[in-house]
């Protein structure tokens, strides 16, 4: 399985930016973060002691639709809980996250955006990290589809997702909490428990669950945990940015 690739700060103008490419779902997202910024015109809506998080998702090849507003709401809910909006300089200001879908198939008006969601979330997170916005923790997210026979597919392509019985997006914090769950399609709770376990393994690996031979195999199939991919992307960037300092030492 080919893991996602990401790079930090590809853009010059925005405070922070990231590009993210997930080969299995084919999504390619470019994200930027401006923070902290003044948000005039919304002064009455600003919270007095907290930062206002704004998310904007721009479609790649189709006119904007209500679906983007819904996804924006989800992303705002996730990152809003991570951003330390009460830090100095953030209260009464805004954190503006812009995500553009620059590659992959576009999502139809009525299609669910769930397959795109993990890529959008990861891009938002990396862009926030690139903009040095204070966060309480990081997270990783994945999408799984369950077909009629109960087979779980990780990061399904558009065709697999269309044929699936249910689709689940789960996000876990770096400390292992379930941060987000979006499931649609018919399923029962036991299926969801299985999906949750698999998702947890994809995001964090299975080392925390216990050294069970069976589970270890799952980890191999899923390759490197996503949490590690995110961490390495940031580490690589830090190494590049501080090359002058590291070389001197």
């Amino acid at each position, binding site marked *: 399985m080919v893991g996602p690739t990401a790079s930090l700060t590809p853009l010059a103008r925005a*405070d922070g930016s990231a590009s993210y490419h997930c080969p299995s779902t084919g999504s390619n997202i*470019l994200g930027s973060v401006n923070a902290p910024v003044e948000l005039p015109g919304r002064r009455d809506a600003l919270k007095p002691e907290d930062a206002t998080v704004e998310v904007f998702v721009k479609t790649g090849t189709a006119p904007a639709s209500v679906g983007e507003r819904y996804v924006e709401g989800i992303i705002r809910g996730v990152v809003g809980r991570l951003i330390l909006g009460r830090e100095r300089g953030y209260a009464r200001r805004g954190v503006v996250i812009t995500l553009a879908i620059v*590659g992959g198939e576009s999502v139809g008006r009525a299609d669910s955006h769930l397959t795109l969601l993990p890529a959008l979330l990861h891009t938002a997170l990396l862009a926030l990290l690139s903009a040095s916005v204070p966060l309480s923790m990081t997270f990783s997210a994945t999408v799984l589809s369950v077909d009629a026979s109960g087979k779980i597919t990780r990061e399904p392509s558009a065709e697999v997702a269309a044929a699936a019985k249910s689709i689940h997006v789960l996000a876990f914090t770096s400390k292992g909490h379930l941060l987000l769950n979006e499931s649609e399609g018919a399923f029962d709770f036991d299926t969801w428990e299985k999906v949750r376990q698999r998702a947890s393994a994809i995001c964090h690996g299975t080392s925390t669950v216990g050294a069970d031979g069976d589970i270890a195999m799952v980890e191999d199939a899923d390759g490197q945990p996503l949490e590690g991919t995110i961490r390495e992307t940031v580490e690589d960037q830090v190494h590049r940015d501080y090359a002058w300092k590291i070389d001197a030492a």
Partner: protein
Amino acid sequence: MNKEAPLSIAERDFILNALREDVRLDGRAADQLRPLTVSFGEEYGHVKVQLGRTSLIVRISAEVTKPHDDRPFDGLFTIAMELTAMGSPAWDNGRQGDLETYVTNVLDRVVRHSNALDTESLCIVKGVSCWSIRADVHITDYDGNLIDAACAGIMAGLQHFRRQDAVVKEGQVIVYGLDERVPVALNITHKPLSVTFHTFDEGKKVIIDATRKEEQASEADVVIGLNNAGDVCFMSKFSGSPVDAMVFVDKTSVALEKVKEINAIIDKALQADLAKRAKSGMLEMSRAENDRELEQ
């Protein structure tokens, strides 16, 4: 906000004084473009344009729709550009600013109204179905001269794009997948591009391809749209102080030279991409054959 933070007086004076001595901040001559690179993505019609520190992504897409009732033989072509906070922190998400309206209008005139894309070739069945071509422009970094960069991006995208093949059989339109039939290139009638000039000192100094700071310090702008043959398809002096008519006359030849230069860059990039695709296409073919063998 929708307005960049204004230049300080000192900065403005510095730019102006330097220009009076024929010096630009980045060391270019008055008639020199910033380095322009055009590159293509994996999909057809996915273009990345980098002009100095201005960068943008253009995506071309096609779908089958119903033509307008009053023009049953014409396909549809739309250029969609929305400025987001990604390009510049000064731009507001989801709110249309003056710049957006202006640039969209100019692009529409230069590319669409000059009929660069032959919309009649997009017709499939008269009055029933036609192709709708959409060009989405995503501004990723803004450092001046949006119009020229976007224009180059859209034209490159249109030339690079391949739509699925469609055939009419017994009143049915059959659209073949990209892997089944060789996709069809769009019918481009000519290759118009725009060149934007900015004037300073009551029109005494004229430069092309201004950066964001130069744009802010300038008095007025003049946009000339031309194709390789030298046909003028757009000319505007939109706002700012008056400009001597001779500027238009003098600079049209400069514009033509630049249009040829940009078109050459696009052509070169297209050639390179085509060669790359031909190479990987061969690989793809052999792999596809292997797949089939495996299936059997």
